[in-house]
Structures are given as structure tokens and as C-alpha cells.
């Protein structure tokens, strides 16, 4: 009985790590840059494809690809924000109008990115095998790549937390999250900080996708939407605007998903949705929100 519990706990946390990462990324884009990025999942998808391409075509290990992809996707996200969202923010007649327009722009972005991926890589599902050998971890056997994924997510999460709490940029981000206008008045280069947050969000999404591709062979241009939904549900679960909450929420949801999948494989999304519905009914501010 105890062994089964640990088994479930570890299994859930392994997936939860990825959920936590993509949720924090989404939370940064919505909580700070105020962009409801419906295309978040597409960056996850691109991260998966980047890892796949680098591995199968160039033989680069995903763990090394991580250090290539992370800055690359950060840059891509940063540029997209400056080119697409900054003009929208500047010309918007109200914050609410900007939120609406940026969401619609993300919708457009979703279709552009998905179609591009379809053109470049085609529709069939892709996967690769990396570090798939079994390893004994705390009494249960798991594929090595899953353990690596868990460690990677935790390390990345803690690094980011440290960055937010202790660096000057991190403080600027927290100020902008509270009140973008006030932060600007106090000397923060708001356009740069917001673009930075969007870039960080894209980076985390791509990293999540990369880690995902290591553990499952589900890489296809259409994989993104499901993960966007998961990120949304986790962010609401943790509390909109609460980074720590998103991180913890990701692990909670991963655990729930693992348990549901072991009983009834097709219903994990439905279970997440029920949780979402429950939250909206009873506690929309989430577990840790104000």
C-alpha cells in the first residue's frame, strides 16, 4: 500500500514538473504582460519539434538542446512581443481593450505557428527515444528520462524563483506585475520588462515541450492546445498572478492526472476540466490567490 502511494506520488510529480513549468510561463505572460496567450501551447509544440529535429537530424542530446533552445525561444518571444503586442498596448483605449485584442492576436498567432509547423514537419506524430532505460528511484522503477525531467523542472523552477526574488530585473518584473503604470513612473522600462516576461514565458513553454518530447512520443503540430488548456487550469488553480501558486498547482494537477489516467486513460482532460469548473464555481481566486 505504501509502495503504491509512493509510486503514484512520483509518477504524478514527473508530469507535474512539466505542467508547473508551462504554467509559470503562461502566468508570466498573463499576470505581468497581460496577454492571454492562447498560442502558448504552440511554443510548447515548437520546443518539442526543436528537440526532435536536433536529436534525429543532428544527433544533439536534448539536454544540450535545452541550452540552445532556451535562449533562442526567449529571443523569439521577446521579438514577437515587441512587434505584435507592444503596438497594441500603446494604441489600446483601455487595459480591458488591450486584453481582448491581445487575446485575439494570440489566436491569430496560434494558427500561423500551427500551420507553419504543419508545413515544415507534416502532420504524422513524431517521437524519439532518449535515456529510456529503466532506473530505480525511491523504490519504484521509472524510465531515466522521466527522472531527468523532474529534476530539470525543479531546478529551472527554483532558478527562476531565485531570479525573481533577488535580481534587479526580477524586482522590476514583480513591480510591473503589481501595477505596470506605477512601475513605469518609478523608472522601470516597462515595454522592455513586459517583452522580457513574454520572452521568459515562451522560453519556459519551449523548455516544457523539450522535456516532454524526451518522455513521450506525442510530437505533432496539433499537440499544443491541450497544453495551453492545462496551463490555464493550473494558473487558475494556483491563483491568477501568483507564480508560486502556478508552480505548486502544476504538481497538484500532474498528480491528479496520473491518478485518473491509471484508472481511466481517456479521461484526464475531463478530470482537469471538472476541477476547472469547480474552481470557477467555488473559488475563482484559486488556492493561493487574494
Amino acid at each position: 500500500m505504501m509502495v503504491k502511494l509512493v509510486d503514484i506520488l512520483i509518477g504524478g510529480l514527473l508530469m507535474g514538473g512539466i505542467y508547473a513549468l508551462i504554467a509559470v510561463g503562461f502566468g508570466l505572460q498573463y499576470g505581468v504582460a497581460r496577454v492571454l496567450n492562447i498560442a502558448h501551447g504552440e511554443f510548447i509544440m515548437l520546443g518539442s519539434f526543436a528537440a526532435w529535429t536536433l536529436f534525429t537530424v543532428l544527433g544533439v542530446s536534448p539536454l544540450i538542446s535545452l541550452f540552445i533552445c532556451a535562449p533562442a525561444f526567449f529571443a523569439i518571444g521577446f521579438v514577437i512581443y515587441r512587434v505584435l503586442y507592444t503596438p497594441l498596448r500603446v494604441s489600446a483605449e483601455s487595459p480591458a481593450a488591450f486584453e481582448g485584442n491581445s487575446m485575439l492576436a494570440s489566436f491569430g498567432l496560434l494558427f500561423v505557428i500551427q500551420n507553419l509547423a504543419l508545413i515544415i514537419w507534416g502532420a504524422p506524430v513524431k517521437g524519439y527515444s532518449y535515456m529510456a532505460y529503466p532506473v530505480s528511484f525511491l523504490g519504484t522503477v521509472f524510465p531515466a528520462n522521466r527522472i531527468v525531467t523532474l529534476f530539470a523542472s525543479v531546478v529551472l523552477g527554483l532558478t527562476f524563483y531565485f531570479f525573481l526574488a533577488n535580481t534587479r530585473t526580477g524586482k522590476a518584473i514583480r513591480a510591473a506585475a503589481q501595477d505596470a503604470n506605477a512601475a513605469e513612473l518609478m523608472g522601470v522600462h516597462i515595454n522592455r520588462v513586459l517583452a522580457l516576461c513574454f520572452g521568459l514565458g515562451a522560453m519556459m513553454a519551449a523548455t516544457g515541450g523539450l522535456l516532454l518530447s524526451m518522455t513521450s512520443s506525442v510530437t505533432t503540430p496539433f499537440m499544443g492546445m491541450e497544453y495551453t488548456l492545462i496551463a490555464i487550469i493550473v494558473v487558475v488553480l494556483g491563483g491568477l498572478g501568483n507564480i508560486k501558486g502556478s508552480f505548486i498547482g502544476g504538481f497538484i494537477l500532474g498528480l491528479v492526472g496520473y491518478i485518473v489516467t491509471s484508472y481511466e486513460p481517456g479521461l484526464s482532460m475531463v478530470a482537469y476540466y471538472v476541477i476547472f469548473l469547480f474552481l470557477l464555481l467555488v473559488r475563482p481566486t484559486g488556492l493561493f490567490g487574494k
Partner: protein
Amino acid sequence: MKTRKKRYGSIISYIVLLILLVLMPVFISSSSYKLIFVANILMYVVLTVSWAMFSGPTGYISLATSAFFGVGVYSTALFSAELPLILVILIGGIASFCLAYLVGSITLRLKGMYFTMFTFGLVELIRNLLHWYEVNITGTVGRMVISPDATTIYYTMVCIFIAVIFASYLIKRSRFGLALQGIGESEDAAAHTGINVTRVKSVTFAVSAFFMGLTGAAMSLRWSYVDPTMAFDISRSFMPVLMAIFGGMGHLYAPIAGASVFSILEEIFTTKFPYYYMLLFGLTMLLVIRFMPLGIEGIIERLLKRKNSGYAEKS
């Protein structure tokens, strides 16, 4: 605040449009393909007008269009063999109405973003649920549908089109429509003026869903096979939004014009560039949001205002 001349002008243009639509089969000698082509355009017009009916005045962006369309599709899939056509279609509409009212009363109490996020996932949720149900409970995925002829389907769509235009017009001119406008301007002020804001939003959302359900039931009569993935396709949530943004959402003609232009474009693009059309539409959306957020209507109204202010200066 239209002048009498302007109002008669628009009523006459609608009547002319109606006559053209009713006589269409005569013009194209009942060609099946062409009738379905026009029916397809009508489908998009109805979806866009319904979408704009709610999301326009309130500013709550719904991405659930595909969910309600799919509910209608399933009404056809389940009942078209046993029940008369008109009942099947009405069931599709009513089921969507109920679903929308339920979703609305839960999520419309909250900020717009929660609503949008929930509607975004609703399509996926229903698809997953149905797929799981069909695989595990009924054992077969997908159903067969009995198809009536193209002319029947065409006239069904014309009727739905008339109904949605009528409903839009009635809502705009009623106290309900006034309340809706007030809600769009300031929900707080509207609530303190005695308007039950959540209920008004939910009812409007449900009415718009009703027409989406009718449309789903009607158009899927043409498909001989129905499965969850075909019925609940997220791009059907995207197209009405794109068409409404492109056309505009202020006057009634705007979404009609936007949808007509775009559905013709869609028909052309899906045949000529089957691998690129989503890319083109996505880019269009980005360009429209960035450079003409009020759509074609915004441009037209600005030109009209310039013309009219010329007259005012003269008198």
C-alpha cells in the same frame, strides 16, 4: 439614431437580399454543389451574426462557437433517422441554448478572461468526453447520417438566416438590447440601475448559442458520417471571430458583410491552398487587429461621417 430614410433604405435592402436568396435555386438551376456553396456562406453568416450578438455588445469573447455547433451536429447524428427534420434541428438549437445558459450562469459572474478561457476549453472537453464515451460505452466511434437533398438543406439555412437577422434586430431595438449596451459600457453602473447583469448576459449568450446549434444540425445533414473530431473542430470557433473582427460589430450589416467575404475566401483558399489557408487567415487576423480594429465597418463609417459633416457645414 437613424433617420427615417436610412431605416427604410436598410429594410428594403434586406428584403431584396431575401428575395434573391429565396429565388437562388432558380438562378443556379438547382445545382447541388452551388446550393451547398451558398448554404455554406449562410452558415458562416449565421455563426458570425450569432457570435457578434453576444460578444459584440458585452465584450466577452466567446470561443465556444464550435461547441454549440457540435451539439447541433450531434442532434442530427442521433435523431435524423427517427425524427422529422424540423424537430431534429430545433433539438440542436434548444440543447445548445441550455448548455450555453448553464455555462453562462457559472462563468459570466466572473471577469471576462475566465469566461474566454472556459469557452476555449469547452470544445476540447466535449470532444474528449464524447470520444471516450463512444470508445468505451457504445463501442463504435462515429455515426451515419441520412442526408436529405441539397435544396432542403439550402432552404433550411435560409430560414435560420432570416431567424437570426430578425432576432438580432429585435434585440437591438428592445429594452433588453439597451440593457445589453449598458452592460457593455459599465457593468457596475448597469447593476446599480437595476439590471440583473448575469442573467442578461447568460440569456443573450444562450440565444446566440441557439442559432449556432440550429446551424450545426442543419449543415451536418450533408455529412454522411459524424464523429466527435469532425463535430467539435476548434477552427469553427476561430472563423466567426475573424469574420466579425474583419467586418465589424456595430451595425447589423457589418458581420453579414464580413462573413460573406470571408466564407467565399475560405472556399477559394481551402481548394487552392489547402496547406496554407490557416496561415493566411492567421496573418489576416493579426493584420486586422493591428491596423483596422474596427473592421471594414469602421472604415465605412469614418468615410460616411466625413461625407455627412461636409453637409452639416454647408447648412
